[in-house]
């Protein structure tokens, strides 16, 4: 006797909504079990991990602040992933966007123009796109697999940031520490809610989600890319260009990641340092999949991911649990979320022994 999954004739609507609840339930349950095994009060643990971060206005704003770069990167990646374009280098594209936009800010440090910020954001998008264009070109021209090339470019981007902040862009009044000057006030994204850090980048992210939804569900090009991902031969037969899908997937991913990058340096950080991103480009891949590659899903999954990060910080302070425990939770939650989705397309059946 074992459990077998039979495909449903059509996806279950009920399970589409129920599955995340099932996953969260499993997570909370196993989380509480884990707390208990570690000698902590499960209810207290749950409160500290999931509710502490949101206990005041500042906390909720921080949730959105942390979710913003995840949303941006994830929606860009989702466009590509749907077409089987595997951009693993969003982290590098984010850094290059930060450099491009940050470079504009540093160059125009005396400017009061209202076009400075939009110019920086545009530069950030272009910077990310340029970095993503490299794996796209190598794939379409030389058939080089983009998984490898985009990943290698992450390391190279990190080294470029390092070189710039240790060298040409280093703040001359900074006692030779690796950092640029702080950006001037006009080059910092405006705060949306006073007393918090959530800034205009959130609006850009939500705009990107809306644009992403429109692209994926209402545009012909988006349709082409979806078909290219699901049925490669059919799409080629219909005349959809595989090369165009690669370019589109990589450039959109790179552009969004670039905007995420400039949002960080022109937002909460306020300068270029060697610590622009704690791995948003990689976390965004998970956010994209947990969000089922749809903008609405990505909105929620990025908030959830941000909550997990913040919960880990709280767990360290109030439960005396080490940092690594938050990674364990994140991993577990992701497994449960991914696993629960099976019920949407498949029906479980107990199968007896044959013969």
């Amino acid at each position, binding site marked *: 006797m074992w459990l077998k999954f039979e495909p449903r004739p059509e996806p279950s609507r009920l399970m589409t909504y129920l599955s995340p609840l099932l996953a969260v339930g499993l997570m909370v349950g196993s989380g509480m079990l884990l707390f208990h095994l570690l000698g902590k009060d499960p209810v207290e643990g749950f409160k500290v991990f999931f509710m502490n971060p949101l206990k005041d206005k500042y906390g909720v704003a921080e949730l959105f602040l942390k979710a913003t770069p995840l949303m941006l990167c994830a929606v860009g990646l989702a466009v590509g992933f749907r077409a089987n374009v595997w951009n693993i280098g969003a982290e590098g594209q984010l850094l290059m966007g930060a450099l491009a936009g940050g470079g504009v800010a540093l160059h125009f440090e005396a400017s009061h123009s209202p076009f400075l910020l939009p110019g920086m954001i545009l530069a950030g998008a272009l910077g990310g796109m340029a970095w993503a264009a490299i794996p796209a070109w190598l794939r379409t021209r030389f058939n080089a697999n983009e998984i490898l090339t985009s990943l*290698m470019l992450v390391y190279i981007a990190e080294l470029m940031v*390092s070189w710039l902040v240790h060298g040409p862009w280093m703040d001359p009044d900074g006692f030779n520490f690796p950092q640029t000057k702080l950006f001037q006030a006009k080059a910092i994204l405006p705060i949306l809610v006073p007393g918090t850090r959530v800034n205009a980048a959130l609006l850009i992210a939500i705009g990107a989600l809306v644009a992403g939804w429109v692209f994926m569900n209402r545009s012909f090009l988006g349709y082409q890319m979806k078909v290219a991902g699901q049925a490669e031969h059919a799409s080629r037969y219909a005349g959809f260009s595989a090369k165009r899908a690669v370019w589109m997937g990589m450039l959109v991913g790179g552009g969004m990641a670039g905007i995420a990058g400039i949002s960080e340096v022109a937002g909460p950080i306020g300068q270029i340092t060697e610590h622009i991103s704690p791995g948003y480009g990689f976390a965004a891949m998970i956010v994209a999949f947990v969000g089922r590659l749809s903008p609405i899903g990505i909105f929620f999954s990025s908030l959830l991911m941000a909550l997990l990060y913040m919960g880990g910080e709280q767990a360290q302070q109030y439960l005396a649990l*080490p940092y690594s425990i938050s990674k364990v939770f994140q991993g577990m939650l992701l497994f449960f979320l991914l696993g629960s989705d099976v019920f949407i397309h498949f029906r479980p059946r107990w199968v007896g022994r044959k013969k």
Partner: protein
Amino acid sequence: MGLGFLSSILFATVVAGTPLIIVALGELVTEKAGVLNLGAEGIMSVGAVAAFATAHHTGSPFLAILAGLGAGMFMSLLFGISALTLMANQVASGLALSIFGVGLAAFIGKPYESVALASVAVIKVPVLNRLPLLGPALFEQHGLVYFSWFMTAGVAWFLYRSRLGLVLRAVGESPVSAHSIGFNVVRIRYLAVLFGGAMAGIGGAFLSVFYTPMWVEGMVAGRGWIALALVVFATWRPHRVMVGAYLFGGCMISQMFVQGSGVRLDIPAQFLSSLPYAATVLVLVLISRNRTTIRLHSPASLGQTFLPDA
């Protein structure tokens, strides 16, 4: 000093490349069956801590390797359940595993962070180790280094000369066709995934027991990702995995030698550090140009979820 210099670089390159080869070979087999498992970093971490703890408690490097192997298989089993039985997206499942694995290893490894482990002696191959230049570099290494060479040949033989290897490749090329012939696609993929996990666990064991005999969280330091990239670099051919690992490791080691020798170079250090990555991309581009040979070796169904009875 001249020959000694080259010999040292070669020696260090082989050592640096060994964990990459072992992990990449495992992932290669997994991918040949059509499954993309991005969880290597997490599996390596758990393998490393399991091996370290075993070495500490038993004093036996051999048992430590077995522990790493077992821990690696267990972790990849989780991936298998997610991606093969529950048919979740493979990329996401692998990423979840890498996060979970790194965190889990850090967590259970905490009590071992202050433990000092005695280093294990290398195994010297008689006669061969007297060869000039190559002798001390290649034949006075740890057992797992020789294991990595053996496995390179072994995996190549398995994939291209054995019946099971042929079946596995067929599954990777077209799981639907393989299924219709009567092969149990899911079971074969499970075996491939478990093999990949075992190898990743052994790679992790090499790091914590032989390479730098210690356990600290984060010590895998991204090598799992490099190994994954090497599989693609190798265009899924086992011998190229070795070439790639030594190329990568060799670049890393060489730039250290250049730095340490005091040669005056007016090049930023970051530029030198980026050479291994740039070299990897360049070589990949050069060898990928032939579309036909690429298609010949890359598993067509890589990353796609197999849906039985679909």
